[in-house]
């Protein structure tokens, strides 16, 4: 029920390159597999989302006048299933594009359509589709409307269950870019063998083991008059997944051949040079889970792994692969939106550890309803790269590391005290290299402490009041912030929330501003209408040296979502 946070974040998360999360992945055609034939005429389902904002100029926060005054993003998914067949479309409209999203979406049209046919052995899709090989380090396509991200492949996909425990899929197509497709052709094949299914002896084993491998190649014509550029750029990956009782271990190694492109150029002796180095990435995750206790340890090293179906693309455009960020995605406003981390595809070492523990109900420490503790630590730093002028590229030793990019230590304790009252406290210590993450110079590395208190009180059945107090404390950058949110929910239909963000510690006195916001919502079954009014902060949104500004805004917004 963190409603207000989520809506404010709709725009603000757009400032977070790290938020390439997968919430909406394959919500459209992925769900088709489980559809049963519900009668002679098949079945139609889908969902709709409309986000509209009316803008007022606000010189205090630097919100510019918007010529259209009203902007709207919307999409509608419509899926028809009959037996083994599924067809679907998504109509999108950006009239005009809401601020903070890429203006190249301006317009409307059918941005996604597909037809698929499923049997036990084969699954064939033509048109647009979303897919992922392994952890996604060589191929992952997904849609995230909140970020204005969609890199679906428009082409064909065949999935086959070849033998017991052997799964193969092949994809070919071009990727979506706004209302068109990119110039490169993506070809990929992925195979996975689940040993417990292949070998009968292992069928009942508590130890589950699978191996997988992928190969992806992109073709794009070399039209550069001055350089010889690889037209077929290939990447491959190998992975394993082992679970045994409470333990789990999985890992993947990926590699890519030389791929000089817009995002990996480097400046050497005053000349911008194309980078002909190969790339690679390795990811390792270990987990332990038992009743009440969970432990996760992860490590990742990435070097020159930005992979796109257009070598000239930048920003969130035409990415073929996805490099997971080994940092916790926070949901509380200040922790989520001020200093969010983005994986640096050109080079990074990252480690993460997390322990969560549920203290038993009824124990002295756990109290009557139990207590939950979570400790998370993540750390990312650069590679120790040196220019290899002879090969026009960058070299880096495997274990060497460069400057700190990001560090986050956070602790959460939550407890339900009575039937009516529960509370959570959180502390975050975030160190953020603003220059590297946002592609800027001169801001340096910022250290901030964030504290959150989240209290929920059930006044009577169906009526709950929630108070959230947040503080971000730093003497750097824009200084300290305070946030207060008060939310009243009358389930299942109504909620109202008021929020204020106050930049009380801004070194510029004129910028010690309040950003008040009010939101009311009505929910009925699968439909929700929310109406909001207030100020939203500005932010800079940078990826790979390309930056765009998400202007501050002031106005009314209306959001409608429904599914059927």
């Amino acid at each position, binding site marked *: 029920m963190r409603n207000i946070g989520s809506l404010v974040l709709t725009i603000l998360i757009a400032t977070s390159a790290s938020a390439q999360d997968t919430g909406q992945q394959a919500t459209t055609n992925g769900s088709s597999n489980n559809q049963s034939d519900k009668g002679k005429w098949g079945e139609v389902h889908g969902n709709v989302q409309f986000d509209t904002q009316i803008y007022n100029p606000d010189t205090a926060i630097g919100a510019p006048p918007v*010529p259209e005054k009203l902007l709207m993003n919307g999409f509608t998914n419509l899926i028809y299933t009959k037996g083994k067949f599924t067809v679907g479309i998504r109509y999108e409209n950006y009239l005009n594009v809401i601020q903070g*999203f*890429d*203006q*190249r979406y*301006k317009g409307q049209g059918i941005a996604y359509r597909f037809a698929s046919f499923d049997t036990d052995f*084969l699954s064939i899709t033509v048109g647009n589709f979303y897919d992922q090989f392994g952890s996604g380090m060589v191929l992952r396509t997904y849609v995230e409307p909140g970020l204005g991200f969609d890199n679906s492949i428009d082409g064909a996909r*065949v999935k086959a269950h070849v033998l017991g425990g052997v799964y*193969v*899929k*092949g994809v*070919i197509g071009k990727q979506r*870019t*706004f*209302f068109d*497709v990119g*110039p490169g052709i993506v*070809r990929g*094949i992925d195979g996975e063998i689940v040993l417990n299914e292949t070998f009968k002896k292992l069928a009942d084993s508590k130890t589950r083991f699978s191996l997988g491998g992928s*190969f*992806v*190649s992109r*073709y794009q014509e070399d*039209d*550069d*008059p*001055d350089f*010889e*550029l*690889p037209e*077929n*750029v*290939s990447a491959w990956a190998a992975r394993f997944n082992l679970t045994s009782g409470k333990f789990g271990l999985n890992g993947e190694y990926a590699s890519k*051949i*030389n791929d000089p*492109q*817009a995002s990996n*150029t480097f*400046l050497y*002796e*005053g*000349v*911008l*040079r*194309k980078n002909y180095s190969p790339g690679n990435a390795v990811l390792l995750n270990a987990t332990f889970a038992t009743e009440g206790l969970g432990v996760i340890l992860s490590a990742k090293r990435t070097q020159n792994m930005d992979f796109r179906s257009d070598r*000239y*693309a*930048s*920003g969130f455009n035409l990415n073929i692969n996805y490099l997971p960020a080994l940092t916790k995605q926070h949901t509380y406003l200040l922790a989520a939106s001020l200093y969010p981390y983005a994986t640096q595809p050109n080079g990074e070492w990252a480690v993460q550890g997390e322990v969560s523990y549920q203290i038993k109900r009824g124990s002295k420490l756990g109290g009557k309803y139990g207590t939950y503790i979570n400790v998370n630590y993540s750390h990312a730093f650069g590679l120790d790269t040196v220019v290899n*002028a002879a*090969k*026009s590229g960058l070299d880096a030793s495997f274990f060497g590391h460069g400057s700190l990019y990001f560090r986050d230590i956070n602790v959460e304790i939550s407890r339900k005290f009575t039937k009516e009252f529960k509370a959570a406290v959180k502390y975050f210590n975030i160190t953020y290299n603003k220059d590297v993450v946002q*592609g800027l*110079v001169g801001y340096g590395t910022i250290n901030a402490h964030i504290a959150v208190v989240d209290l929920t009180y059930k006044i009577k059945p169906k009526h709950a009041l929630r108070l959230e107090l947040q503080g971000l404390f730093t003497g750097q950058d824009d200084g300290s912030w305070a946030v207060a949110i008060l939310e009243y929910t009358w389930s299942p239909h109504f909620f109202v929330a008021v929020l204020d963000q106050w930049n009380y510690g801004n070194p510029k006195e004129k910028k010690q501003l309040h950003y008040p916001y009010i939101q009311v919502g009505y929910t009925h079954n699968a439909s929700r209408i929310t109406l909001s009014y207030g100020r939203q902060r500005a932010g800079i949104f940078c*990826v790979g*040296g*390309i*930056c*765009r*500004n998400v202007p501050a805004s002031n106005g009314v917004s209306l959001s409608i979502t429904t599914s059927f």
Partner: protein
Amino acid sequence: MKKNRILILAVALLATGGCDIVEPPKYGCTDPIADNFNPEADHDDGSCIYDPSLFKGCTDSTAANYDPQALVSNCHCIYDNVRKILVEDYTGHTCGNCPRAAEVLHELECEWGDRVVPLAVHVGFFAIPEPPMYASDYRTTFGTDWNLNFGNSAAGLPNGMVNRTPDGGNYIRSYTAWAALTANFLALPAEANMTLTNTYSEATRTVNVVVDINVLANLGNGPYKLNVVVSEDSIVGYQKDYDPNLVDENLPDYVHMHMLRTSLTGSWGADVNSGANLTSGSNLTQSFSIVLDEAWVDHNCNIVAWLARDDNKSVIQAEYRPVIAE
């Protein structure tokens, strides 16, 4: 059934292409007459150092101003009766990665002479004046209109457009793509020739511009618009530059080139041929006039013109000439 499976595997394998590992370029000075000529280099990095006594001029024998005496290129060749394209650099003075795009544009000018018609348009967040250092306002209402229409600053600066030609509705091109696009466009024959004749009165600071267009092909998809704007070179002012070798990223003496100052024809150009399609062989002449702003250095000002389709704004032919003939 088994056959099917083998067939599918074979198709999947065939669909998956091979890979091209290529030799990286060897950067260095590729001009044999330079003092630091590197015979192993295959890509010039602009590092050539010349004996200052060597004569500079246009070294391309196909150019109208080819100078057989010239040994070193002055990056200033002028051509007649060929396709010329508009290359726009959308930029801002607080955009620290933008000098990289300006460098690419300069390289293109050196390589192609006046077949590349350069224009730098300061737009968006990074062009907002930020006193005390970044006090200048280089924005124009016309540049702002283009920026809103094409979405440049929202897509992230630096970026630009080559001949305003859309590829699937997308006009915006990374500066790393400009060289290839420029070569592709300039390989095409011209569809119209355009000449600019500027007459300037220093007393009144008035420029009279006569644009002559000679149409060489039957051009459908009308109407067409003629755009005439003023650009100014060599404006010295602050620019942010994220070159890691710099001690301070705020460069006080940065030389801004080709900066859009104003338009004589509004944001989207003046009517050509009363909105009718253009047919091969037709000659059109149009005149314009403007008084230069006091703040602009007249010797550094250029008239930039381009003929474009009105529907999708794509450029047919472009040209530029200094206000005061050299």
